[in-house]
């Protein structure tokens, strides 16, 4: 199919953003949890 590479650039780009978004959600949650535990320890 002509233009397949351009189409795939968009598909993989969207997948990249979705994975990054989910990763950031859990990373930010972990940071908040870590701060809360540090406060408990003090």
């Amino acid at each position, binding site marked *: 199919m002509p233009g*397949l590479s*351009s189409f795939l650039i*968009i598909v993989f780009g969207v997948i990249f953003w979705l994975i*990054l978004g989910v990763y950031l*959600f859990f990373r*930010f949650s972990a*940071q*908040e949890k870590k*701060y*809360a535990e540090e406060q408990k320890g003090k």
Partner: protein
Amino acid sequence: MVIGVMIVYLIAMLLIGVWSSRKIHDQKDFVLAGRSLPPWVAGLSQASTAFSGYMFMAAPGLSYRLGYAASWFALGDAGGNLTAMAIVGRRIRRLSEILNCLTPLEIFEKRFNSPESRLVGALVVGVANIAYTTAQMVAFGTLFELIINLPFAYGVMLGAFIKLIYTFLGGYLAVSVTDFFQAIMMVVVVTYMFVASYLVVGGITGIHNAVYAIDPELLSIFGPGKAVPWGVGIGWLILALTYGIGAPHIAIRQMSIDKAENIKSAILYQLGWACIVGVVCYLFGLPVLAYYGAGLENPEIGMIMMARDILPLFLFAVFATGIVAAIMSTGDSLLTMCSSTLSRDVYQRFINPKADDRKMIMVNRIFILVIALLALIFALSKPPLIFTLVVFALGVQVSAFVWPILGAIYFKWFTRQAAFASILSGGLVYIITTIIDFGTTTGIDPILWGMGISGIIAFGVSKITQPPNAKLLEIVDLANSYAPIVEDSAYSNQTLIESKAINEKISWATLSALANCKA
């Protein structure tokens, strides 16, 4: 049928305006919805604000003219709000609360101790947002002209009137709640139009074959005749990835969320939405090209024409209403942003600091009327392509504001003079390089010139000017931490007074007045 569905929708929006008006008690409620937006409203309203009538007209028009070269914008738009919320969202929310700021420009003054940055920033916001509002009104007039044969001028005026009424009544709360519903409507109509348009021309393979027959280079990400070289493509990508940081009408969504920690949830809400609407709208030009062939007189209305020709009447009516929703969701935000900038950042700060909340709500509403009227006059003169106006409005704001906002949060070396120089140079360079079409001459998009020169100047000026006071930097540390913000504005007022006294040697009375200029 089409008119009936639209009337139902418009009445619903007006009712939300009336409902919101009952919840407004002070300026903070009118300008920032009292910092009370839940993450799903903040996330989806930010997304729908970022995606205007541009997405239904200019974006398909771009891919109709340039094929897959529009992917640069599509990929940027899919992740643009994600990057904005992840990089500055939580921090800007906390910083604005600590400093008791109602507008992004107010942060510049209080964080950098720089009223001149606030003033020149207001000028940039005013110019850019009037151009942007004009584009939305043109989109309205074009849409009504096409679907119900209403003369362009009447369509422009009707759209302006509806938007004006509910924004005037309900302020930012009405805008956010209507944006939320408009976001849902947009994703529904985009999804079914995408499926219908691709099926009717033979799916992805059928479209690619048809487009290949017209011009094989339309299937390249650089466009026909390499119309979009690397320098321009990357410029488009960066513009789409950064306008959530640099455009105040979008950035303010992050300041109005109920809790800073809810930004992470808002990221997910808007991301799922943007990955559908942000990408699909840029691909619509391809089925339009396959369906009608090359040579449409106005490619920006191609998708609407196709919807009219292939959808059942009811679905077309809902689709057309979805476009109205897209136009309204951005146009209303621009009106409130521009009016709150002029009222809070110019009128209350520099003309009448003693204006109380009641007066400020009234001033806000007057500015809403004035801005809408100005945009209406420009729109009636049928200005250039919607694409040109929107990209210009976003580009000038991103060039001017991205570095100062990043500097306010991340760069402790960023000085008062650097903030001012960065805003001024970024805005001017973008405007000049756009006017002389420097992007075509050099193969490098004006956004890269604007942001690049603005950043270099900010860095250079910071190196040769007095470093910021340590007290101000304590605020940055607090904003970047997870520590609770104990009392609204108490910390900031005290710190600001001390730091400004040390830095500026100006009178305590002036400083107290500034710090006490509370919401």
